[in-house]
């Protein structure tokens, strides 16, 4: 999207339970943001407009544990438009028990700066 294209978006603010409906019009270069009721809401809308970020949680295959999959989580938020690439990388991985919570499973996934770590410990199955 170039900076001159006309925007017409509405987002629901999730900063607090008030759930303001925020309208974004204008252009990327000069957006008009209305409907927010606090500074954090405005900041949230700007982030959603320029670089929406999300935590990434999923599972990876694990061998030798009580269960077949192990939950993983990103150490920080990753850009929303890189979620798909990150997930594909996660689904290619296979680990072997035992794993400790916090063990790094994938370092700097898709050059996002976030690591993917084990979200729980998994012992070897008896």
């Amino acid at each position, binding site marked *: 999207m170039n900076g001159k294209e006309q925007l017409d978006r509405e*987002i*629901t603010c*999730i900063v*607090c*339970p*008030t*759930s303001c409906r925020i309208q974004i019009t204008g252009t990327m270069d000069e957006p008009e943001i209305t409907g927010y009721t606090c500074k954090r809401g405005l900041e949230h809308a700007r982030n959603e407009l320029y670089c929406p970020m*999300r*935590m990434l*949680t*999923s*599972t990876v*295959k694990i061998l030798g544990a*009580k*269960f*077949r*999959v192990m*939950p*993983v*989580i990103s150490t920080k938020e990753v850009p*929303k438009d890189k979620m798909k690439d990150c*997930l594909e990388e996660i689904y290619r991985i296979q680990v072997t028990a035992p794993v400790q*919570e916090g063990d790094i499973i994938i370092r700097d996934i898709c050059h996002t700066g976030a690591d993917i770590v084990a*979200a*729980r*410990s998994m012992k070897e199955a008896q």
Partner: protein
Amino acid sequence: MKTIQVDLAVIGGGPAGLAAVAEAKRQGIGRVVLIERDLELGGILQQCVHDGFGLHRFQKRMSGGQYAEAFIRDVEATDACIQDNTMVLEITPDKKIYAVNETEGMLLYECRAIILAMGCRERTRNQVFIYGSRTSGVLTAGAVQRYINMEGYLPGRKAVILGSGDIGLIMARRMTLEGMEVEGVYEVMSSPGGLTRNIVQCLEDYDIPLHLSTTVVKAHGRERLTGVTVAKVDENRRPIPGTERYIDCDLLVLAVGLIPENELSRGAGIEIDPRTQGPVIDQNFMTSIDGIFAAGNVVAVFDLVDYVSETGEIAARGAARYLKEQKEGNKEGHSAHTYKNVTAGEGVNFVIPQKVAAGELTQDMAFYLRVKKPDERVVLSCRMGDETLAKKKERFVAPPEMLVSRVQAGCCVDNDLTVEVRKEVPHER
């Protein structure tokens, strides 16, 4: 039958039970046993791979497993006995627990105090009444969550979700990320059942439509589900003829609410609040039976695990005080106090605790409540006659978000309390 004497038995190793055991040991309770029916501790947290846990307590966005592990480490560092893979069959009013497991057979625990932390259970198809054959492919959201996140397989290819409870919303995103198609979420009520942030992050982010005032009226298929019929409903939640629509799908996910799991509590004769469907409790989370406490979702369904852990700790401190009084030969429990009622007043659907021991509060007392309807600019207050014991402004309230209010230690309770949520009036600013 093996008989074991303990000071405190905690039933259920989910977030409430784990927090209760850790706090009980910090309070110096001697012999503590944690009885869990699953193979491992953590309860439902272990199947919650999504983040959003621990925001209040750890100021971090953790996934369910990470949150559980923090508490499991605390518990394993104590000398509390962890009895997993063990099912409690019965609790008696004189605090005996009958349990069973594979290796030891029947067990009898003679307890001086008990904390109930059995959590809650999902409503199933039987409780929402859908016409049609009883095919496979109709599952609760929690079951789908367990299959995908722990057992590691997908229970269908194309799903329809009935109900907009939080677990259903979370699973809508999860199924999409796992490559399943989620046709839509159907909610019989005119407003969503789950938290707004889940609607936004789980549905809107993935363009999954939410259809309000719409329900599933029929399930199709012989052995496996082949589709469902949905229809709009009127204000009395009755399907409107002519609005039916058929949807091809092989999975119907039910996210239609949670009910505290109180079979054991009922069996012991504990008084149950018809509104919360959990035990009636006092400010220490003690039930109607002396020395039996309850914590977490078994008391009322919470939406944040942070509060569940907090109630486990309140109950453990209550149990520690109870045991101390008993040891010193003081009167303890109900005989030592007269109780005042806590009533859900204007705008409030339910409030816990439902009663408070009369006298000066020795520590802050937390109230947990849900409002009846969404509202803006309200004042949440706890009144005793004309006196206001606690007051808090809220910019926005809605039934899916549980509210907490605290009355400070030192307040003297000598009358019934009313908790209410009213419109803010200008002079109160």
